[in-house]
């Protein structure tokens, strides 16, 4: 048993270790060390908690059993999950944090004396507000993440689900929660507490269903942020510094990522939240752009020829590459090109893939050195000097319409200047529009050669033709 003051100091130490864990991610070289700081912080926090409670009755055995049970399951998933499924995994993990926050809040509400918050039915006012907020945000995170998970997994359609009065209902429910928390503080009624949680579950669902598949990177970052605020809310209830610091870190991290994602799509945060993006755009565009323009159609042989005679090639990967599992074939192709002294770099748009940084991880998995991979702003000027731009599985992020047509729904979105390179190879299965539902002008440019095929198969064919 250690004193409250000593354990508070240790919680502070673990909070600092968590800060260092995030700090380590500023470069791939320091990142692994950072991860160990995070693990150390977690071990300290858990150990101190056991010591400060000091109750080593039968319940301790159960705590360890459940800890190992959950840990084994978590480790199993961590080793088995394919990198393409990272967005779903992260969404799933967010839902667990949310639900854990709800459970801890319920436990604190049911037996407040354990946490020194007063007695049942007579909980300290501040604690009551803190735990209600923690529980409500946790519940929203949980159900919202479940919906995001289902959408990413493809179990639920990525199309936005909208109905009239949707935002009004959300607003009404949100205000309802505030009113209920107010009454909860007055009469400490258990039923009101349950109602707050139930309504929060409902809000989480309603909040995410109108958001279309294209906006998923924002949604995941946003839920990341929510899970942080939920943890912070519980941290206030438990008067635990480690939790408060962590909650604030995670909350601001998720908020910054949401901001970066929104900016990369030139969309305001509110328009993403209000949702309905994918649906309107596609119906509107399919009408006015139906006139068939000529497209230059090529095959693997042409592509191989073009690249063999190039001196620099920029590869623009997108989510389609991940779906087709073409990253390894791509890497093989690049190796061959490099042998012929061709300079090859990768250009990554911030929203390529379905979560922040997703494409980088997939390329890393395929053993692409990270110093050959460049972000949008670092490489965009290089397209003008490149002989070939090889677009594989990306679409909207290369669409020049974002720079030229103010009427386009993606106007103003920063895009890769692919069309400036001498020739563009565009691997795609068909001429169908991308996620945003907009026709890509790039298909019809004179210097574009369309390669209609599955990304993996086409890349493998090109590899054969490079010999």
């Amino acid at each position, binding site marked *: 048993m250690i004193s409250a003051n000593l354990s508070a100091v240790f919680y502070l130490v673990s909070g600092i270790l968590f800060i260092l864990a*995030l*700090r380590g*991610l500023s470069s*791939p070289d320091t990142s*692994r060390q*950072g991860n160990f700081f*995070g693990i150390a912080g*977690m071990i300290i*926090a858990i150990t101190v*908690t*056991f010591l400060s*409670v000091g*109750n080593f*009755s039968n*319940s301790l055995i159960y*705590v360890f059993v459940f800890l*190992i049970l959950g840990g084994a*399951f*978590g*480790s199993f998933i*961590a080793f088995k999950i394919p990198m393409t499924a990272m967005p779903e*995994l*992260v969404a799933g*993990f967010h839902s*667990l944090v949310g639900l*854990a926050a709800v*459970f*801890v809040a319920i*436990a*604190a509400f*049911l037996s407040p004396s*354990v946490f020194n918050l007063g007695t049942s039915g007579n909980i300290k006012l*501040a604690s009551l507000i803190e735990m209600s907020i923690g529980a409500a945000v946790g519940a929203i995170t949980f159900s919202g993440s479940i919906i995001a998970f289902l959408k990413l997994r493809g179990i639920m359609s990525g199309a936005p689900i909208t109905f009239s009065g949707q935002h009004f209902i959300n607003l009404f429910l949100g205000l309802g929660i505030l009113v209920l928390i107010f009454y909860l503080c007055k009469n400490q009624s258990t039923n009101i507490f349950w109602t707050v949680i139930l309504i929060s579950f409902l809000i989480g669902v309603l909040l995410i269903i109108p958001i279309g598949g294209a906006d998923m990177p924002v949604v*995941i970052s946003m839920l*990341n942020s929510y*899970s942080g605020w939920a*943890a912070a809310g*519980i941290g*206030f*209830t*438990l*008067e635990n510094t480690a*939790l*408060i610091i*962590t909650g604030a870190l*995670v909350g*601001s*991290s*998720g908020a*910054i*990522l949401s901001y970066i994602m929104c900016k990369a799509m030139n969309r305001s945060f509110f328009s993403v939240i209000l949702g309905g993006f994918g649906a309107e755009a596609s119906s509107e565009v399919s009408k006015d752009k139906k006139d068939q323009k000529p497209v230059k159609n090529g095959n693997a042989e042409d592509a191989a020829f073009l690249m063999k005679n190039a001196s620099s090639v920029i590869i623009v990967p997108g989510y389609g590459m991940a779906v087709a599992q073409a990253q390894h074939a791509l890497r093989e192709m690049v190796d061959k090109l490099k042998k012929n002294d061709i300079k090859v770099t990768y250009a990554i748009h*911030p929203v390529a893939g379905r*979560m922040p*940084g997703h494409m*980088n991880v997939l390329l*890393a998995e395929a*053993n692409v050195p*990270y110093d050959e*991979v460049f*972000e949008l702003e670092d490489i965009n000027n290089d397209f003008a000097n490149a002989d070939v731009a090889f677009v594989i599985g990306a679409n909207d992020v290369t669409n020049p319409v974002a720079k030229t047509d103010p009427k386009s729904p993606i106007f103003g979105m920063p895009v890769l200047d692919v069309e400036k390179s001498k020739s563009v190879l565009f691997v795609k299965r068909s001429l169908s529009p991308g996620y945003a539902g907009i026709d890509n002008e790039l298909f019809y440019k004179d210097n574009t050669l369309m390669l209609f095929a599955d990304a993996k198969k086409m890349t493998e064919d090109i590899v054969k033709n490079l010999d």
Partner: protein
Amino acid sequence: MEIDPFIFRISIFILSIFVGYYVVWSVTPSLHTPLMSVTNAISSVIIVGAIIAALAGSSENVFNSSSIFGYAAIILAAVNIFGGFLVTQRMLQMYKKKKDKKK
């Protein structure tokens, strides 16, 4: 007059938001996915609340209404802690391999 401890906690909270703001902006964009998985893992430090709730049960009554929620939260948070840190480690390992190969 004595300052309410709540003020200290809110101070820590707000300062941590600022620390988070600057630290996260310095994270390189290529590591944004590991950033999300590691923040996931560390936010599961919520397990400390779950442990306190779970250990509160007396020896005769290990499973009372509140400790059951504690146990449940321990399972959820443990999945996250182990899963989050390990998957982050797995990803970061991939960033290393290339570096070595190139040398």
